[in-house]
Each structure stands twice: as structure tokens, then as C-alpha cells.
């Protein structure tokens, strides 16, 4: 048996997190946490190399025979993209939160929880067994809850409980479907939770639709789509920027990830049935989120609303069922992780100086802290999908791919593109430009970004720029997932209408 790389990859941060729960000095804890997160990144890089070279990384060990549950891990292009994103973001988040808010628990607890969360998320993205996925899916809630409640802002209690209740409600509905999947599988001679075994099971008719809805609702809560999104702005507003990055950048991706891997992967027929509804639902999210961002008076809320809008695009791309749009969605999941991380972390830098997330508290920062303003602008431009930055490529793929099937829906969704310019540039205009306010002068003069803060932004913006100009490696990585999913669902891309007379 070859070395179980994937198990090792997921366990590494978990072990690190548990180790950090032991009593030790603050300095040692932070160093240890960073070492573990970087080691995880190294292993993830190794796994990528192995995957690209064609090695079979799948782990498959019987776990609970009575349920047909397996300890089954595997990565495809999409899973690997998510794994890499998680592994890259975690050390950056740890560095950005080197000094978490001192009023509550210490840095040690923060580092431990982040590492545990990382490990659990990695397993979520690698799980190849429905029950295993479900368990890790629910398990991620625990460290997240504590990250919000232990380090958050004024209304952290409310926000944490709201987050937990929304997620648990979705999770419970999903549990019913998980049980249902086993029952149906067993009745068709495949009493197993393993995805390969379930691929041959047919979930037809109304039953299949109900089971699919169970999964879908959980993922809709997770990938927040209107109207089940209201936990996100509260949770983001009341958590530290690092937590918000992991929450929106990594955890919410489980929603769209799950739609592709489980909703489409288990219930192709039911997914096609729900498509007309989901497409419009996505458009509503796009516009709703954008309008919410325009109306936000708090920077963290603004960024989280932009994510609602962007998740709308991802869902639109998934349910348009073309190779381009779905590849775009998966690629968007990757890019969105970095662009949101950039936004949250910069906003965090600003708030660290002024102690406020309110847009009103800023004004004219550009004059006294040009680097901070520049980094915010670049992050904002990534968020509004400016060409040259990675999100543009993915957003374009979603738009162009969806257009070939649903031109009218796409045209409506494009309103979100205009509104994106409005919410980003208005925010920038109100916080960074204009005359320097007294408040800004007092907090920012001589306190532009520090070396560490700049160093954290370099890889994030670097990735965004690189994938903006050279997206091909990432697109090639994730496209097979889209192709395989579409082949399983059984749809084909629309062919060009006019044959070019070359």
C-alpha cells in the first residue's frame, strides 16, 4: 500500500491544532501553529504534483461496515483547487492575526482553532463518501462557532448562534437525505455511502427530487443564497478579518462544491429538474447581494454582501450546464477565495488602526496611507472582476457559458457587474479619497502598512494577477471536473450557430 497522502494532509493540521491546546508559551504556540500550517501547504503542494503526474491518491478503507461507510478520500481538479486554496490561505490568516483581539481568548486558542478548522475543511474537500463528508461538514461548525464567539465583535454571541442555527438547520435537512440515500442505495443492492458505488444507483422521480432538495438546501445555506444569507453579514461583521476570510473564502465554498459534487453528482435528473428555478434564484442572489453591498455602512458587511453576489454567479454557472460556465464557476470558487481574503484582510488592517469598520469613520486615507489605499483598490478591482485579475476570467467564463444557453437570464445577471463597480468604487471613494478627516489623520499618519502586512498581501495579489494573465494551468486543473460532471448529467454544450467560413 502506498503512503496515504490525503489522510496525512488532513491530519497534519488537526494534530497541530490539538497540540496547540496543550499549555505552552504564546510565542511557541504561534511559531508551532505557523510551522504546521506551512507544512500542510508543503504537503498540499506535494499532493498537487502527485495529482498532476497522474498518481492515484485515493484512500479507501472500510469504516462502519453496517452502514457501508468508508474512510474514502480522493481529489479531483475541483477538490485539489479547494485544498490548495485552503492550504495557502491558512498560513496567511495566521500571520494576519498574529495579534488577535486581546480582550478574549489568546492567540494560542485562535491558532489552534484555525488549524483544526483547516484540517476539517481539507477532509470535507477530499471526502469521497457521503457520510464522511456529512460528518466533516458538520464538524467544521464547531471551530467556526468558537472562532466567532471567542474573538469577535460586539454582537458575537448573536452572530455565532445565528450562524450555527442556520448551518445546523441546513445540516439536519441534509442528514435526512443522507439517510435516504443509504436506504435507496440498499434497496437497489448498493448498501454503501461510497460515491463510486452510488454512481450506479438511480434516484428517480419524486424521491430523488426530495433527497436532492435536502442536500441543496444545506448547500444554499452554506453558499449563502438569498433568502438564506442573512447569517453571513452578521457573522462576518462580528468576527475577526482572519475568521471572516476562512468563513467566506473557504467554508462557504463547501456550498458550491457540494452542489457540483453531490447535487449534480448524485441526482443528475433531479438537478436538471430544478435548473430553471436555480438559475433565477442565482440571479436574484447576484442582484440582491450587490444591492445589499451598496446599502452597507459597515465594511465587513459590504464585503460579505459582495460574496453573496459572487456566489450567485458561481451557482448560475453551475446550473447553466455548459463546460465553460461550470469550469468558470469552479475557477471562480478558487479566485473568490483570494479576492475575498484580500478584501477582508485589508479591511482588517484599516480597522486595526482606527478600531472601526464603519465606512463613516474613514475619509481621505489615501493621502496619509497610500499603500493601504492602493492595496484596497487592487483588492476592490479584483472583486469587481477587472480584466487582468483572476476573477475576471472566471466571471467571463460563467457569463459567456451561461449566455449560450440562457441569454436573457445572463443579461439580467449582468446588472450585478455594473452594481459591482458601484459598490466597490463608492466604498473606495468614501473611505480613501476626499480631504483627510481628523479621525483619519489621527489614526493613519505615519502608520501605513507594515512590512508584515505588505508581505501577507504579496502572495494574495500575486496569485490574483498571475491567474489573471495566465489562467490556463488552473483552468486545465478544474476543467476535467466540469466535463466529468456534465458527462454524468448527460448534457452537451451548445454548438456554434454559424460555422465560420475559414
Amino acid at each position: 500500500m502506498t503512503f496515504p497522502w490525503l489522510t496525512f494532509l488532513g491530519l497534519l493540521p488537526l494534530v497541530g491544532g490539538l497540540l496547540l491546546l496543550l499549555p505552552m508559551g504564546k510565542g511557541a504556540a504561534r511559531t508551532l501553529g505557523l510551522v504546521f500550517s506551512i507544512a500542510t501547504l508543503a504537503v498540499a503542494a506535494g499532493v498537487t504534483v502527485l495529482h498532476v503526474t497522474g498518481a492515484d491518491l485515493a484512500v479507501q478503507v472500510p469504516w462502519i461496515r453496517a452502514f457501508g461507510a468508508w474512510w474514502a478520500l480522493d481529489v479531483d481538479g475541483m477538490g485539489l483547487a479547494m485544498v490548495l486554496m485552503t492550504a495557502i490561505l491558512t498560513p496567511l490568516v495566521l500571520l494576519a492575526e498574529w495579534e488577535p483581539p486581546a480582550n478574549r481568548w489568546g492567540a494560542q486558542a485562535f491558532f489552534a482553532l484555525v488549524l483544526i478548522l483547516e484540517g476539517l475543511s481539507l477532509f470535507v474537500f477530499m471526502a469521497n463518501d457521503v457520510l464522511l463528508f456529512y460528518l466533516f461538514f458538520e464538524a467544521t461548525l464547531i471551530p467556526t462557532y468558537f472562532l466567532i464567539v471567542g474573538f469577535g465583535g460586539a454582537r458575537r454571541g448573536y452572530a455565532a448562534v445565528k450562524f450555527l442555527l442556520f448551518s445546523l438547520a441546513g445540516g439536519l435537512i441534509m442528514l435526512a437525505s443522507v439517510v435516504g440515500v443509504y436506504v435507496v442505495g440498499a434497496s437497489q443492492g448498493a448498501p454503501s455511502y461510497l460515491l463510486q458505488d452510488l454512481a450506479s444507483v438511480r434516484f428517480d422521480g419524486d424521491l430523488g427530487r426530495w433527497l436532492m432538495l435536502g442536500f441543496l438546501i444545506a448547500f444554499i445555506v452554506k453558499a449563502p443564497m438569498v433568502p438564506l444569507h442573512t447569517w453571513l453579514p452578521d457573522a462576518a461583521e462580528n468576527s475577526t478579518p482572519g475568521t471572516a476570510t476562512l468563513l467566506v473564502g473557504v467554508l462557504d465554498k463547501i456550498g458550491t462544491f457540494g452542489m457540483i459534487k453531490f447535487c449534480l453528482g448524485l441526482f443528475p435528473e433531479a438537478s436538471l429538474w430544478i435548473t430553471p428555478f436555480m438559475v433565477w434564484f442565482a440571479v436574484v442572489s447576484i442582484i440582491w447581494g450587490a444591492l445589499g453591498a451598496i446599502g452597507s455602512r459597515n465594511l465587513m458587511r459590504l464585503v460579505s454582501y459582495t460574496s453573496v453576489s459572487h456566489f450567485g454567479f458561481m451557482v448560475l454557472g453551475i446550473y447553466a450546464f455548459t463546460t465553460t460556465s461550470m469550469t468558470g464557476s469552479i475557477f471562480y470558487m478558487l479566485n473568490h477565495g483570494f479576492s475575498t481574503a484580500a478584501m477582508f484582510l485589508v479591511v482588517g488592517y484599516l480597522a486595526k488602526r482606527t478600531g472601526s469598520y464603519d465606512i463613516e469613520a474613514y475619509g481621505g486615507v489615501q493621502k496619509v496611507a497610500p499603500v493601504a489605499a492602493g492595496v484596497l483598490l487592487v483588492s476592490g478591482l479584483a472583486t469587481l472582476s477587472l480584466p487582468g485579475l483572476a476573477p475576471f476570467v472566471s466571471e467571463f467564463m460563467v457569463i459567456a457559458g451561461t449566455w449560450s444557453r440562457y441569454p436573457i437570464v445572463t443579461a439580467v445577471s449582468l446588472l450585478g457587474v455594473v452594481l459591482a463597480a458601484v459598490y466597490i468604487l463608492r466604498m473606495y471613494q468614501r473611505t480613501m479619497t476626499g480631504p483627510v478627516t481628523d479621525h483619519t489623520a489621527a489614526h493613519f499618519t505615519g502608520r501605513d502598512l507594515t512590512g508584515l502586512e505588505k508581505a501577507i498581501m504579496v502572495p494574495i495579489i500575486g496569485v490574483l494577477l498571475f491567474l489573471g494573465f495566465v489562467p490556463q494551468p488552473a483552468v486545465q486543473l478544474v476543467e476535467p471536473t466540469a466535463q466529468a460532471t456534465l458527462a454524468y448529467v448527460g448534457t452537451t454544450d451548445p454548438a456554434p450557430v454559424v460555422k465560420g467560413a475559414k
Partner: protein
Amino acid sequence: MILLETIAEPVAATGMFTWAWTMIAVPAVVAGLLLVAGKLSDAWGHLLATAAVFWSFAIAVCLFAEQLLAPATERAVSANLYTWFTVGQWDFQVGLLVDQLSILFAMLITGVGGLIHVYSIGYMSHDPRRRRFFAYLNLFIAAMLLLVLADNYLVLFVGWEGVGLASYLLISFWQHRPAAAAAGTKAFVMNRVGDLGMLMAISTMLAMFGSSKFTEVNAGAAGTEPMWATLIGLFLLLGACGKSAQVPLQAWLLDAMEGPTPVSALIHAATMVTAGVYLVVRSHALFEAAPIAQLAVVIVATVTLLAGAWIGTSQDDIKKVLAGSTMSQIGYMMLAAGIGPAGYAFAIFHLITHGFFKANMFLGAGSVMHGMNDDVNMRHYGGLSKAMKVTFLTFAMGYLAIIGFPFFSGYFSKDHIIEAAFADNTFIGICALIGAGITAFYMTRLMLMTFFGEERWLPGVHPHESPKVMTIPLIVLAVFSVGIGAVMNFWIQTWLEPALGIHAHELSLVPTPVGWMTMAVVALGVVAAWLVFGRSSIPVVAPATNNPVTLAGRNVLFGDQVNDFLFVTPAVALASAVDTTDAKGIDTAVDGLGRAFLGLSTQLRRLQTGYARSYALTMVVGVLLVGAVLILNLVG
């Protein structure tokens, strides 16, 4: 289609053409370097940036020379750089197309751009953020070159957005001024509306032709269903309207004058705003397949050329008069581009001559402002011809060029457009003719208010000529304003023939009847302006008026008010509605659910009394109930 067959396939790049990419890369890299290096490059940043543009210019000239030497069918050269991404059936390459059309643009952009860089060294010499200014200018040059050199619509769109970003950054360059910051945001957002059109057009092309490459789109255009061809045309027109400040997306251009004057000259007069014209001409095959879209272009162009001229007549801010004039002149170009094969070459011709004389006048206006403590109000000028001789003389060359004084460059290019318009439709032709008259009127007004009459200078203002670094670019541009028209007049059609699939018309130096008419109308405009503004003194404060024509002109035809009413107010209302729904609607429902459960459990808690006897009673009642059910079942 006969026309299409004449378009030669581009040949692969060899020799000098393999260097084409450095035209874009060098300014882009310099821009990045200056931004990242920060204060380290303050001392030499502007010089490096200027050198980068001249590098691009040198390459462009060399390529042009090679094209001139090559046979007509081998002048168009394509250079594929790398695979951007491939997905599904679609393949997106980053490739350059250096053909007869794009090389003219490349030379205009880098040539005028280089002169404006030189001018800016002087103009921005006292600005502490000059390095940053030059970085943005270089970013603009790179993006603009990418726009015109791209060989497919998606890469063109990257450049398109890149120039939008540079424009945003430069309009709001003096960010500490709220008006500048707001103008930048407004320009970007309105351009985004146009970008929707671009995105939809590219998406439709991909759905129709499976590619966004110019060659493949052109090849497929003739076979497209009219409905889709029309839609693509209208989408492209929407994009062009945003970028080129055509009605109804015109409102940002006047505000954009908040930017430093060299920016207005380079971006908002000579190059970026003409990108819409380039787009329409580049997409000529599509428009030829869609007469309705062509008609829309003509209508938009005609409305804009009159609207811009109208605005120009009643503004007092010298830059805003020029901005209105730019709108109007681009209207002419769009008109020519919309007319069809008869007009393409003239659209490009006017675009180039306009690029020179308008940049000349903007820089001249900058020079005036430089001497007048950055005052832009023409009512505070007057009699400057004596104080600034070089500026006055160069500005006068631009003036004569724009009104179409015989044998100045505008004379050739504008007359062709008006003639083509008459050939297309008499009504449109008359509109174009009226536009020419108004142009003469407002430009004469500008000249009279600025350079002639009594001195109305504010106290403490001592007008002086600008330094050489600013006047030399002015002189160069003035020379081009005078001569470029005559040089290109007989050559431009033949040159563009293979690229655009057009057939050259016979041109003669003897004016046609329309030409005579144009001259008469222009003379009328000049005389009218002299009668109004030349004979009597000009009040220092704009006189109050109830004249609706003047009021509309002063308020930029109420574009802002219309946009506010139609878009901004509803959007703000919707945003707050979303806010309220989230907080009061969804959250109240969710919190209410939570409270309902809390209330229920509070009630249920009462059952737990702690008295063993009451528990026992509950148990007995339960047993009895179960028993009763069982018995009923047994009986039933």
C-alpha cells in the same frame, strides 16, 4: 460577399513584427515598476516613463515602415503570443494583429502620448505625486495599445477595461478633491454600463461563431441571422457609447475634466474616447450584416454631434467647452463609421486629425491654465494673445483645423464626412452641416473669450508663457494640426482598403457643392460668434438667463438629472429596500422562529413541577390514554 473577399488574411509575424509585443509590455512594466518602487523612483520615474512611450513609438514607426515596404496583401500581420485559456470548445489566445488600421492607431497613441508625456514633465513638475501620474499614464498607453492591437474581442476588452481603469485613476488623480473622486467613480460606472454591451456582444459572438477572433467573426458575420447580427451590433454600440461618451452614456465626459489637463488631452480627447469609433470600424463586417444596428449608430452619432456642440456653446469652463466639442467630433466619426463602407476611412481620418488638433487645443488650454493659476473660467481670461504668444499661435492652428478652415487638417476630414452623410441621407447631412456651423460658433466664442477682448484677469494673476518643455509639444502638435490632413487626404483610403474591404472614392481638391455649403455655414458660425462675443465686453459672471437653450447647455442637457432620476434614485431605494428586507423581513422571521420556540419551551417548562405525585399522575394519564387507544383499536 464581394467586399469580404478583399480582406486579406493576416500573415504570420516575422522580423520586426516579433517585437510588436514590446510596445505594450515596456510601458506596462514601467508602470508597474514605478508603482512598486515608490519613492525610490521619484527622481527619474517621469523620464523612464517618457522613454518607454518613445520606445513604443519607435517600434510602431518601424512596423509602419515595414508595412509600407510590403505588398498591400501582406501588410496585415498577426503575432500570437500565448494561450490565455482554453475551455470547452473555446480557445482564447492572446494575439496581436498589426494591420493597416491598428498601426495608425498605434502611431497616434504613442506619438501624441509621447508628446503629452513630455508636456506633463513640465505641467506636473510641482506635483508631489508626479511619479504616480506617469505610472498611470504608462498604464494607459499599454492598455490602449492592447486595445487596438488585439486580434480578438476578448483581449480587446481587456485593453478596453484597462484604459477605463487608467482613466478612472487619472480623472481622480487629485483624490483629495471630492469632485475629482466623484468624477472618476462616475466615469468608471458609466463605462461599466457600456461594458455590459461588450460582454454581451462577446458572449453572443462566442455562441454564434465559437470564437471572438476578428478574422473568424468577420468570416461568419455574413451568415449570421439578421436578428443576432443586429443584437451584436447594438451591444457593440452600447459599449462604444460608454467609452466614447455618446448619448445616452455621455454624462461622464464633462466631469472627467476634473483630471489633470494632459489626461484630458490624451485620454479624453485624442485616444481613449475614440475607442468606440475603432470598435465600430473594426466590427464593420458585423454592422454591414445588420442595417438596423448601422442605423442606430447613425442616429446616436447625429444626436451626439448636435448635443456636444450645444453643450459647447454655453459652458464657461474652457476644458468643458473642449469636452463638449470632443463629444461632438466623435459624433462625426461615429456617423462616418455608421454610414458604411463609404465612411470608414473618413471616420479614421477624422479620428487622426482630431487626435492631433484636439490634443493641441487641450494642451493649449492647459498652458493657459498654467499661466492663470489653474483658473478654468473663460470669463476670467481675455486678451491672452499678447501674454502667451506661442500658446495663442498653436491654439489658433488647432482652432482653424477644427472649424475646417480650407486646407487645414479638419477641412479635409470633416468635409468628407459631411459629404458622405449627404450621400447617405439628406436629413443626416443637414444635421452634420448644422453641427459644423455650431462648431465654428463655439470655437470662435472660445477664442474670443480667451485670447481677445479686454483683460478680465482676477487680481493677483500674472499670465506668462509656459516653459519650453510644454511649448515644444504644442508646436509639434500644431504642425500636425495644420498639415496632417493634406498629407493623408489622398492616401488614407487606399491604405485602409485591404483592411476594411472598401473601395477608394475619387477625391478632388476642388470643393463639391456640399463643400461650398459647409464653408458657408462655417463662415456663418464664425460671424455669428463674433457678433455676439467679439463686439461687446463679456461679463465676468455668467448672466442669468431664462433661455431654455442656454440653460440646457449650461446644465449639460440635464444628463445628470436624468441619470439620477432614472437610475441612481431607484438603485439607492432598492439598496435600502434590500437592507430593510434583510433586517426587518428575513431576520425578523428567523428571530421570530427562535422566539416562538423559546416561548413554547417556557410554557412546557411549567409541566415540570418537581412534585413526584404530579409526575405519577401524568404517567397514569398516559397509561390510560395508551390503554384507551389499544382498546379502541381492538374494538374498531
